[in-house]
C-alpha cells in the first residue's frame, strides 16, 4: 500500500527564455532567498553573478589531486629505481617495500637520475588531477542520485530541451506557500507548480 503522505519540495516556475530567467534570478536573489536554483538546458553566461553564487572550490581540490599524482610518481620511481630514500635517512621505507636500485642505461642510481622520471611524474599528475576533477565535481554537486523530487513534476523534463525554470525550495527560511507563489507570479513566472515529494 502506498502512502499518501507528501512533503512540499518547493515551487517551480517556468520562464520563456534565458533573458527572462536571468532577470528573474536577479530578483529572487535580491528578495533574499537562499535555497533555490535555476534549471536550464545549457549554462547561462553570467548567471552566477545574477544568483550571487560563490566561485567553485573545485580548482583547489584538483590542485591537491594533481600534486598527489606527482608525489605518487616520484615515490614510485625513486623507491624502485634509486637509493634516494636511503640517502636521506629513510632506508626503512626501501626495506619495507623490499626494493633495490635498478642499474641500467648507465644512469646514476641516486636522486640525480630524476630527469628520466619527469615524463611519468607529468602523466600521473594529469591522471590524478583528472580523476579528482571527476569525483570532486560529483561530490560538489551531490550526484549521482537515483531520484529527486523535481522529477515528479510533469513539466520539469523540459529543462533538458528548451525549458527555463526557477525552483524555490520549501527548506528556505523565507518560503511561504502563498507568499512564494505570488512572488513567482510577480516576477513573471508561468506554469507555477507546487512540487511535492512522496515520503
Amino acid at each position, binding site marked *: 500500500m502506498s502512502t499518501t503522505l507528501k512533503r512540499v519540495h518547493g515551487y517551480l516556475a517556468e520562464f520563456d527564455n534565458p533573458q527572462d530567467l536571468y532577470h528573474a534570478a536577479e530578483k529572487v536573489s535580491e528578495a533574499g532567498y537562499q535555497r533555490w536554483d535555476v534549471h536550464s538546458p545549457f549554462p547561462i553566461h553570467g548567471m552566477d553573478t545574477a544568483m550571487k553564487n560563490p566561485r567553485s572550490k573545485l580548482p583547489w581540490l584538483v590542485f591537491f589531486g594533481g600534486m598527489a599524482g606527482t608525489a605518487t610518481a616520484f615515490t614510485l620511481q625513486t623507491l624502485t629505481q634509486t637509493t634516494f630514500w636511503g640517502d636521506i635517512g629513510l632506508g626503512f621505507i626501501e626495506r619495507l617495500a623490499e626494493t633495490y636500485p635498478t642499474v641500467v642505461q648507465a644512469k646514476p642510481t641516486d636522486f640525480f637520475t630524476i630527469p628520466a622520471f619527469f615524463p611519468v611524474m607529468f602523466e600521473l599528475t594529469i591522471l590524478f588531477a583528472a580523476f579528482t576533477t571527476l569525483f570532486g565535481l560529483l561530490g560538489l554537486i551531490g550526484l549521482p542520485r537515483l531520484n529527486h523530487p523535481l522529477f515528479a513534476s510533469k513539466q520539469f523534463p523540459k529543462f*533538458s530541451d528548451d525549458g527555463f525554470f526557477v525552483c524555490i525550495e520549501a527548506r528556505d527560511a523565507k518560503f511561504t506557500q502563498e507568499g512564494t507563489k505570488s512572488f513567482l507570479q510577480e516576477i513573471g513566472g508561468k506554469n507555477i507548480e507546487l512540487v511535492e515529494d512522496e515520503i
Partner: protein
Amino acid sequence: MEATATAPTTASRPDAPRILDREPLVLNHRSYSWITNRICGIVENKQPALWWLLFIPSVILTGVTAFCFTYLISTGVGVWGQKQPVAWAWDITNFVFWIGIGHAGTLISAILFLTRQKWRTSVNRAAEAMTLFAVMCAGLFPAFHVGRVWMVWFLAPIPNANAIWQNFKSPLLWDVFAVSTYFTVSVIFWFIGLVPDLATLRDRCKPGLKKMLYGMFALGWRGGNRHWSHYETAYMLLAALSTPLVLSVHSVVSFDFATSVVPGWHTTIFPPYFVAGAIFGGFAMVLTLMIPARKIYGLQDLITAKHIDNMAKIILLTGTIVGYAYSMEFFMAYYSGNKFELQTFQLRALYGPSTWYYYCMFGFNVFAPQVFWFRWARHNLWAVMLVCMCVNAGMWYERYVIIVTTLERHLTPGSWRTFEATWVDNWTFIGTFGLFMMLFLLFLRFLPVIAIGEVKGVLPQSDPHYNPDREKGIQEEDLMDYRDRHVPKAAAEATA
C-alpha cells in the same frame, strides 16, 4: 559647434568603417527544440540503410582482426613479416598511426575550448569519440607486439615474481603511462561532456530499459545553475589538463625513437614534428567521418561550411608544419656532417628500397593540402574529402617511412634487410579500420553525435542580454560607441 557632444551619424560620414556580421554558428535561426529533436532523432529513429551497409562489413572486418590476432598467438610471431633489424615494423607503424588520429579530438575539445573557439561545439563530441576509438585500435598493436601477449601485464607498475620493477627510465614505459593516461583522461572528459545530453535523452525516453540506462549514466542531472557552475569549472579544468596532455602524448611516442641512437631517429625535432603530424592526420579523419555523417543525418545547419572551412585551414597549417619538419630533417642530416644520418635520408628519399613510400608521404601530406589556400577548395566537399583521404594515407606512409625505411638500412650493411608485410600483417591492419568504424557507428546509434547543450549555449538567443530587435545583424546604435572612438582625423576637423 561642439563636435564631441553629439554622436556623428553615418550619413555625415560615408567613409565610416563597416563592421561585417559574424557568420552564425547555427544556420537558419534554429530553435532549441529543433536542435534537440534533430540530434536526439538520430538516436531515436530507425537508422538509414547506409548505416547497416557500413556496420555489417565493419563487424566482419573486426572479426578478421580478431582472427588474425588469434592466428598470431596460436602460431607465433613468425606469421608477421618483421625480421631483424626491422623488428619494429608494421605494428609500431600502425600504433603511431592510430594514436596520432586521436589527437585531433583532444585538440578540438581542449585547446579550441581554451582559446574560445565556439565553432568547436558542433564537432567536439564526435571528434572525442573518434579519439577514444582510435586509441583503442592503437593499443592493440603494442600489446600484441610484445610477442607473448599474456605477459603484457609486465607493463603495469607492479613487480614481477622476482621483485623486479619496470624500468622507469625507458621511453617505452613512459609511453605506457602516456597512452593509458591519455585514454583515461579522454574518457573522463568525454563522459563529463555527455552527462547533460544523456539527461536530454533520458527525459525524452518512454519508461523502460532505455530510460533506465540513459538515466543511470546521466547521474540524475537536473541542469541547475548551482550544478552548471561547478560543471563549467570542471570542464575548463579538464580542458586545461588535456591540453598539455595531448601535446605530451605524441611527444612521448616520439621519444621512443628520438632517445635511441639510430640514425634518422635521433633528432630533437621529433616531438613537435610528431604532434603537428598527429593533429594534421586527426583533423583529416574527423572530416572524413563528419562530412558523410552530416549529409546522412541532415546536420548541415549545425556543422556548416564554416566548420569545414576552419578545419581545412588547420589541415593546411599543420600540413605545412609537417612539410617544414620533413625538409628540416633532411637539411639537418646534411648539415650535421654525420655520414650515417645523411645516408639514411638519401636511402629514404633517393635510392633506398622504399623510396616510393617517401614520395607518397611527401606528396599526400605536404602538396595535397596546399589546395586549401583557395576558398573554393575548402568549400567543395569532394575536394575536401579527396585531400583528407590523401592525408589519411599520407600519415600512414609517414610512419612507415620513419620506422621501416630507417630500420631496413641500419648501420651495418651486412644486416640490411627489406621488410615485406605478410597477409596477416595486412589484414590485421585493415581489420582495425573495421573495429574503428564499428565503434563509431555504434556511437552514432546510441549517443548524441553533437553536444546538444553546448550548441544551444552558443546560439545568439542564449545570451542573457540578447535583444531580439537586433536580430538582423549589427544596428546603428551598436556602432555609435565604436565610431565615437574612431573618428577619422579629417572628419573630426571638418565637423569642428
